[in-house]
């Protein structure tokens, strides 16, 4: 296990190197450059050249790339072209909000999905099963840009229970987390149901029943534990996606996360910030996936790492 974790951590290095390289060249290839967006169309050609020089954008791309890679290793991720703030400082300010929202949404999703999925599996082919899966289908089908404003209209405007937007208190977290968590819960509950149905049909469950084990114990201790691997995979992948920022939800709730920072930076061609955001998002994704792989072993001793 330790060897496996060590090997996975070593793999992070070439993955991040590849991501850093791809994002560097992609952002330099796309049309538009920060000089134009900073000093506008009226600027004289000589001033453009001067600003490009100040921003080191007139250097050969290979040199820029070498400096960029050296900076990543030494912890100097550069400064925002637009407001001179160090990239790491900018990301630090935003990533906390993204992490908080991602985990809160996942918490809500798991809280709803697991009991719903187990319930549907146990009552499979009954009215309750159909009802639970109908709820899940509705949850998957409702887009965030609709659900968010509707929740605000009901819970914030009509009943004045929660703040509409912003990040001023813990209460501000509830609506964006529900908005994000709903679709996840729907997907997760269907996955839980399918996985549980597979396990409940297995022979060891028949044996357990024949031995007279209580149904609750059979479901939760035996079937659910073995059904967890695909569920954990989906949770892991979804957390990874959430950590990349959720632009629509962040926009609706004015949530100052990394998604909005990344989009604004792409629009302004703020190369160092875009590179920094993508790197940190990739790093988080790789870490989560490694953690999920390690968790398999805990849930299923048959898995060899």
């Amino acid at each position, binding site marked *: 296990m330790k060897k496996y974790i060590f090997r996975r951590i070593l793999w992070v290095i070439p993955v991040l190197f590849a991501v850093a390289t791809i994002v560097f060249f992609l952002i330099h290839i*796309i*049309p*538009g*450059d920060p000089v*134009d*967006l*900073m*000093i*506008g*169309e*009226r*600027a*004289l*050609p000589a*001033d*453009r050249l*001067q*600003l490009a020089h*100040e921003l080191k954008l007139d250097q050969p791309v290979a040199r820029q790339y070498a400096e960029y890679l050296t900076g990543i290793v030494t912890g100097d991720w550069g400064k925002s072209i*637009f*407001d*001179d703030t160090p990239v790491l400082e900018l990301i630090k300010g935003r990533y906390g909000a993204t992490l908080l929202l991602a985990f809160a949404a996942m918490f809500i999703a798991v809280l709803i999905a697991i009991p719903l999925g187990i319930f549907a599996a146990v009552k499979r082919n009954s009215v309750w099963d159909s009802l639970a899966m109908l709820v899940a289908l509705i949850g998957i089908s409702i887009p965030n840009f609709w659900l968010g*404003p509707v929740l*605000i*209209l009901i819970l*914030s*405007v009509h009943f*004045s229970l929660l*703040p*509409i*937007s*912003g*990040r001023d208190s813990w209460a501000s977290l509830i609506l964006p987390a529900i908005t994000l968590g709903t679709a996840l819960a729907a997907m997760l509950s269907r996955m839980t149901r399918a996985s549980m149905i597979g396990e409940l049909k297995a022979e060891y469950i028949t044996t357990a029943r024949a031995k007279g084990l209580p149904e609750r114990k059979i479901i939760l201790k035996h079937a659910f534990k073995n059904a967890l691997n695909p569920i954990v995979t989906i949770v892991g992948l979804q957390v990874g996606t959430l950590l990349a920022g959720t632009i629509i939800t962040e*926009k*609706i*709730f*004015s949530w*100052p996360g990394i998604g*909005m*920072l990344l989009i*604004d930076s*792409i*629009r*302004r*061609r703020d190369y160092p910030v875009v590179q920094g955001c993508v790197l940190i998002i990739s790093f988080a994704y790789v870490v989560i996936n490694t953690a999920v792989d390690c968790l398999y072993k805990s849930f299923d001793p048959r898995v060899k790492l």
Partner: protein
Amino acid sequence: MKITSTVNLCLLALAITLVPACKRAHVAQNGVLNVAVQSSPATLDPRAATDAEGDKICQLIFDGLLARDDDMELAPGLAENYEQISDTSYRFFLRRGVVFHSGSPFTAKDVVYTYGSMVDGTVASPFKEPFSVIKEVVAEDDFTVRIDLKGPSASFLSMLTKGIVSSVDAKRLGSRFGRQPAGTGPYSLSKFEADKLLELKANGNYFGKIPKIETLRLYVVSDDNIRVLKLIKGDVDLVQNGIPALVLPKVLENKNLEMEEGDGIVVTYLGMNLTDKILKDKRVRQAIAYAIDRDEIISHRFGGQATKANSILSPMNWAYDGDLAQHEYDPERAKALLNEAGLKRVALSYKTSTIKERVDLARMIAHQLSKVGISVKVLPYEWGTFYRDVKTGNFQLYSLSWVGVTEPDIFFDICHSSRFPPNGLNRDRYKNEEVDKLVSRARVTMDKDARKDLYGAVQKILFDELPFIPLWYEKNVVVYRKSLDGVSVRPDASYLTFVDISKE
């Protein structure tokens, strides 16, 4: 006796010192005015701010040597008055006793520094080119500044509305000045949380109108629906130009809300590439103008909150030519013009940004043009790509808006043949010797009436030749809670109107 006289003299001196201060140091009414704005400003350094939000907030924090009054006419600002020494030299007499928000006194040195730092490249300023007309700025004494120009410039005075920065703070803070600005304006910045909130405090020592409400909070709410909901709930007191026109009637059904509206100076236009083999024919451009039913667009897309345009200048501008007609919707005439040009069917592409409203408008225009045989493919592009294509001439049709046009010298930038990008804003690659002569003469003609005649002639030529088609002027709309008093709207949608607002 002697002691009494001395004491009396001291008291008198103290009284003389204190009276002007007492007269000025009003305290704004306690309270908070909450406003929802659409975006976070990139910088609050007036020498660098180009985005509309940044520019409006800078007007609250900074004063220029001159200001624009509610009718968009030039008025005294940090300069109480000025004299024109010659065609190329001006002397400005500055206000005394003005203090920057940081506490440093305002003097002529700040004026010299502000203009100098834009021209010498100390800051990367998009305004360097227009300010390069300045040859020298001289502080004759602490409160007198002389500005010498390289040549006569009729638009020079209107440039002086640009905010004056505190030289002490700008030098100390460097690039951080944009986040910790120090000006002399009616508000000072107390909090800047990017993409979230800007908090400003009333400047009790302001030489002009002191804001009636002490704290102004500008919440950044980028989603249209959420801005509306925040206003309805009472989280914010006011939204200016931030409510989609189509939902406005529904919003106003709320009994707690009221609306003020006024004509605006933002003009949307349809740009055309005059180097394109189809669009270089004037008749095709005229056909396009006649084929666009602007009444329908204004009614359906803007809910009537816009007026048809026939010039880049708004009818409120002193240089606007009131004799201009309109290209009224006339599909038959459009078809006839296309026939005359020898074209039965035309295929064009229309580039736009990915902003939903822009794409919808492009599709609506494309649909209207298709009725006269002009097939238009709408191509929405991400902003950086779209902007690059417009500048490099990689387009046939596109639409953009000119924001805050108060100075008619804009015609030089957008129409003179020497101003093709990257050397100017002549995005449509328009060439006309007569227009070149007129706009060149107008910018060095000091007599206002003579300038107006020159710009009138320019507008007539442009109306006929249509290098671009002015489409509509958007109205300024402020929706606010009834608990507010003194709400008004200016043609430039400036936030300076907030100083007059009080709250029950």
